[in-house]
């Protein structure tokens, strides 16, 4: 269950990142999540790439090869319309989960 929860939130994090930053490569996504979460969330590269490829097959994101600012070749990802719809649903779902868990914790 925990592993699956993590996977679910990884999708959410990646989609949110692409939503905020537009086009980004895998390494950039890792850096963004790390930075935006005040170093609280560490994304494992070992889970990131399978997730990216799975999301691409699901049609939520697309990819293309391009040159980075430093002149290297990198694979850039971008969110699709289906992806932004998925993001909204995942966000709502997550909000509900958080509210539910919080209510649970506050229950005396």
């Amino acid at each position, binding site marked *: 269950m925990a592993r699956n929860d993590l996977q*679910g939130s990884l999708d959410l994090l990646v989609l949110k990142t692409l939503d905020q930053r537009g086009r980004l490569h895998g390494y950039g996504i890792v850096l963004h999540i790390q930075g935006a979460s005040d170093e609280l969330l560490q994304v494992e590269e070992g889970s990131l790439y*399978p997730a990216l490829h799975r999301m691409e097959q699901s*049609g939520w994101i697309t990819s293309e090869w391009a040159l980075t600012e430093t002149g290297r070749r990198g694979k850039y990802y971008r969110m699709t319309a289906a992806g932004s719809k998925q993001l909204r649903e995942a966000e709502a779902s997550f909000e509900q989960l958080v509210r539910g868990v919080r209510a649970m914790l506050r229950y005396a």
Partner: protein
Amino acid sequence: MGILRRLGNLGRQKKLDAEIEAELQSHIEMRSADNIAAGMSPEEAWRKARLRFGSPVLVKETTAAADAALGLERLWRDAHYGARALARSAGFSAMAVGVMALCLGATTTLFNVARCVLVEPLPFRDPSQLVMVYEHFRGASSGSEYNQVSPADYYDWRARTHGFEDMAAWRDWQFNLSGGHGEMPEVVHAEAGTWNLFSVLGVQPALGRTFAASEDHLGASRVAMLTWSLYQRRFGGDPAVIGKEIHMDGNAWTVVGVLPRWFSYPDARVQLWVPYTSIASPGFMQHHEDDQSFVVARLRPGVSLAAAMSEVKAVQYRIHTEHLDQPVAGDAISRPMLDDMVQEVKKPLLILLSAVGCMLLIGCLNVANLLVARGTARQRETAIRDALGAGRLALIRQQLAESVLLCGAGGSLGVLLSVAVTQWLIHAWRNLPRAEAIHTDASVLAFAFGLMIVAGLLSGLLPAILAARKSTFAVLRDAASTVRGSTSRTGLRTTLLTVEIAVTVVLLVAAGLLLKSFLLLRTTDVGATTDNVLTMHYDLPKTVYDTPAKVVNFSQALLERVRHLPGVVATGLGSVVPGAGYGDDDVFTIVEHPPLNPRQDMPDALTRVADLGYFHALEIPLVHGRAFTPRDRLKHANTVVISKQLAEEYFRGENPLGVHIKVPDWGDSTNYEVVGVVGDTLYQAGRPSKATIYVPVLAGQLDRDYTLVVRTASNPLAMSLPVQKEIAALDPALPVSNVLTMQQVLGQSAATASFSATLVLAFAGLSLVLAAVGLFGVVSYMAAQRTTEIGVRLALGARRERLLRLMMSDGLKPAVVGLTLGLVASAGLTQLIRSMLYATRPLDPAVFVLVAVTLFAVAVLACAAPAWRASRMDPMAALRTE
């Protein structure tokens, strides 16, 4: 989605691997560059960057797995998972597969039969150019629009018109085929066709040749062509039969050819062909009123049918004006040959096809209903899978996989079923034209496969979408409170059920109407008794019985012998018995009446030969005068008996007894004296009666075709052998045919009506069972959903009767709505089968009431069991189920 891309990925595994490698490599490079910027040594930076990936091989593999194989694997997994889910509820699956097999099998069969019979082109050369041409009486109020053609009219059409490439004619005939070497004599159905018939159709013989023009003349040598079935059956398929002689009606006929195996025109009963004129009497070619032939014409390329027919119409009108004293039609009419062959079965086939289509719809709705019920039972499972990250499409796909599997299994069984049922149908449906054209081929399989997919989607998509519609949290929330069932699901099931019941009602009403009219047809009073009457047919060959005296002696001797058999109550002899068909008709004049205006149609009556016992044996009542006596024999046989209808139509208020009738076509100028009037009979059940003239059998002329009528004390068929023995004792070479009871005679004319009524009734019955099962399922489901609620109500002191009523009304609501809708729809739709009904109105109140009562009763029964069970629940047990 993406399946094609994934399959593509499978084939490009190498390239993809390289791409993933490159992507991971670029990540590591970027990370190590940053690490160096942060002050690490290049080696350290590189090592740290790699380390974050864990095992690089594993990462690469899991990433690749996300791209490739997944698609195929997922398809297979869906199927596998579906099969496992179905196996878990074997009862449900077996039932659903059975329902689908039955429905798909029946639909495929009827589709195939209808396609082969109604649509498939005739097996002739350029069949769309072939039409049948008929005579047509303008403004004729009675009878068919399409009248058979006389020989002289045919010859005139062929000689005097140019719009058709050629025209050919044929007419029915019968021969006594006797063996040269003491084989059993038999009566064979034959056709006499003009020499050019086979070239008009474009048919090549399998052996030998077709007729030559020189063989189609009066007085030409006698030749015959065998059909494949007679060639195989009687001549052992020996090609040496070509050029040999066969003996028919006491004459020798030379076999010149054998027709191909597939040739069964005009129907499969025909055993052999002879030239058109070989059976004709002198003067035959000049007859304009001997309307017994069928004319096949091939349209000339580039000529429109209307243009070609306008010429024929003009010629026919001229013939009409030249022969005003004869009943010659003034017009001609045509229809395509295919329509002509299948017009009798077109409507029944289309009705059966619609009925079976309705049954398929009901079957799909039923399976959909069952799937919705299962979907409900698996709500929690779905919710958990959803929570674990399965996408909505994946869930829908999963559900669809199950219904497609169900329909696939059902469809495969159905195709097997269809192959067997098609064979049965060909045998069981007597007189189905073009039965030999029915075959199962790839297009039928394609149809069955397509139907299977459509049925699978239809029965799976609706419940699948519904099951996957709700968000995870909504379902989990619902699952937490089972006191009140999910209303949207119940709503859908109720709607499905309502439609199912409405369609069932339409089917039941149609079946009821067809059945009622068939029963009426079957029990029609034809004006003669049908109990304990045996009839059989024989035909005295002209060559042996060459004088009237010989014919009369044979008849008298036979009647004498049969009359003394034990168990025989009465005997009679006639040409045709009531209900056995139209037989002969002729025009007549009444000698004592003033001559008719030549412009007027001449009076026309059925003509029947009858002996003195005929009316008594068949219990046709004598209204006035007397029946025949032994004195009405040979030269003294110048008396006739007429039917009541003839008396009423032509002797209004006048006493017909003693008046004289003249029938020009009988070739003599005898004035026949009317000596008696008998009750009316029907020549065919379901058709109006027609004026009839009876001539004494003992005149020994006219016809040599006789039907022996034997009324017995008990089971008439038990007498058939003793009677046949008496015939054989008198003339061992004389074949006997059509040994039938009167009831069988009538049954034959109602064969198609009986067949379609029975089949539609079977479909309707099955649909009713399906609807009842659906109703039972829905009420059981609603009761299960409300277990807690019922428990609470019971605990609070609700009366069980009230609960029973509550549960019943839940189930009966869709039944009543469906019933009402179905009755309304039936009222409109039954107009379509009006022409197939006999003495039954499309809005027959008895049928509608009966259907409504039956359906309501079945609905009450189907609802009562689960409702009763629910109301008997122990409140504590009910509450504990939570």
